[in-house]
């Protein structure tokens, strides 16, 4: 690993000042992604600003029933929090299916939002990658594409976003709070990550001098009946081929509220607006679930090795809704 200067920031004001004055600086929280990328020589910060000692580690109830989650809350602590488990089970489940217990104990909420793709061509310095080196091309195209995107990809990049947590946050209408010397901004999670277009190296809406300080969840009664399902190549400790975060509330025989997001299929956690639109007010039948899933995946474009994802995503959506219905999505 290249050497770098190390600065430990005791509070947000110091952290954002440090990053503003040093263009080649990076924040470090749990380090689970950044240390690996620095060792691989993919990230080459000249200064690393350590924010892991900042007191952004609380999970607080907001007036009205939402939650405010500090950016430095560790993934394991968030998944264990009683209010997350009872009000947003999909979030606890999503986090628990991600990585390993050791990594969840280290990784922070802010770092999880900002983690980079695990596309093997992004990691391989000998391969062309527009994300790593803009304009160099994409060796994933025409390469081994089992894990790549089927929605929202471009000619420049077909990588997927690796997070499970973010898929649940997308379904839950989460809002990300970021801060810099210029002030505080709030960005809806569904708009936080970007599709690749012709600039896949720009992955999020956050500016280089901004720091994630919190994630807020609105009060969302439908989330009490929610679930995360992850399909992967081995039973544990693997990234998703396809994942589904869903919440369902049925009243008087029709869908009264619904939330749906997909993971493993795009460069961002994919909020399934089209499927939600079709389901809202419809009868909660196998047929409606299937039609909604098909409509959401209609624009999907497969690569040679991941055609199966389009069908797998639809079946996974139907399976999760079926389960939610059986579990009491019907009131």
């Amino acid at each position, binding site marked *: 690993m290249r*050497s770098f200067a190390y600065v430990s920031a005791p509070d947000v004001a110091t952290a954002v000042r440090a990053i503003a004055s040093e263009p080649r600086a990076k924040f*470090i929280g749990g380090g689970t992604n950044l240390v*690996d990328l620095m060792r691989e020589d993919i990230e080459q910060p000249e200064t690393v600003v350590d924010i892991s000692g900042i007191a952004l580690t609380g999970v607080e109830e907001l007036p009205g029933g939402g939650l405010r989650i500090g950016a430095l809350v560790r993934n394991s602590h968030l998944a*264990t929090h009683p209010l997350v488990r009872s009000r947003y089970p999909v979030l606890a489940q999503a986090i*628990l299916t991600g990585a390993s217990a*050791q990594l969840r104990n280290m990784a922070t909420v802010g770092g999880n939002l900002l983690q980079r793709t695990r596309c093997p061509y992004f990691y391989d310095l000998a391969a062309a990658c527009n994300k790593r080196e803009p304009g160099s091309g994409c060796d994933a195209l025409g390469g081994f594409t089992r894990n790549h995107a089927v929605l929202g990809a471009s000619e420049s990049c077909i990588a997927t976003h690796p997070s499970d947590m973010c898929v649940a946050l997308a379904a839950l209408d989460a809002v990300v709070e970021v801060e810099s010397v210029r002030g505080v901004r709030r960005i809806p999670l569904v708009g936080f990550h970007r599709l690749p277009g012709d600039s896949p190296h720009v992955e999020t809406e956050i500016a280089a001098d901004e720091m994630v300080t919190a994630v807020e969840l609105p009060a969302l009664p439908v989330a009490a009946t929610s679930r995360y399902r992850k399909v992967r190549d081995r039973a544990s400790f693997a990234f998703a081929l396809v994942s589904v975060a869903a919440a369902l509330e049925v009243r008087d025989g029709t869908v009264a509220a619904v939330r749906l997001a997909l993971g493993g299929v795009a460069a961002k956690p994919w909020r399934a607006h089209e499927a939600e639109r079709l389901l809202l007010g419809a009868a909660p039948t196998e047929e409606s679930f299937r039609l909604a899933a098909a409509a959401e995946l209609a624009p999907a474009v497969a690569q040679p090795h991941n055609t199966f994802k389009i069908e797998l995503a639809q079946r996974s959506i139907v399976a999760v809704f079926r389960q939610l219905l059986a579990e009491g999505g019907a009131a």
Partner: protein
Amino acid sequence: MRVNGAVRSLEVEPRVSLLDALRDHLGLTGTKKGCNQGACGACTVLVDGERINSCLALAVQYAGREVVTIEGVAADGQAHPLQEAFIRNDGFQCGYCTSGQICSAIGMLAEHRAGVPSAVTEHLAADVELSAAEIRERMSGNLCRCGAYNGIVESIQDVASGDPGDHDVPETVR
């Protein structure tokens, strides 16, 4: 930082991992380097009682913390119950993953006592019984290339149930 109960001061470059600091600077070679990228768990140590991958930790970030490695799990010359159980149940073959497995299992049992759920926990609200499936899921961050998983799971079950165990005879023979 405190390592295995004793204050150890060391000066390292910011890029030195906690794993390399323990092994190369403090001479504590019980903690192993497998993948050096967070995938195998061989480097697992306990920090303030929680298990982490020391290969992805920068040592500077852990100044002042309480680190326990495999060298620190025995008390008063008495092997840790998990160490004894691993011997009894053939919880290893080459032994390379073992220090990580044992530190990880200590952290995992503490998580379970604190009510932490896992990905295979059906009801997030309920108390979880530590079944073999729960143990396998909770230990999935520790790979064993010798495939000693059955013995590892039995060892952890023994200790979790407070049963000294009597698995001297392999299950297949009994």
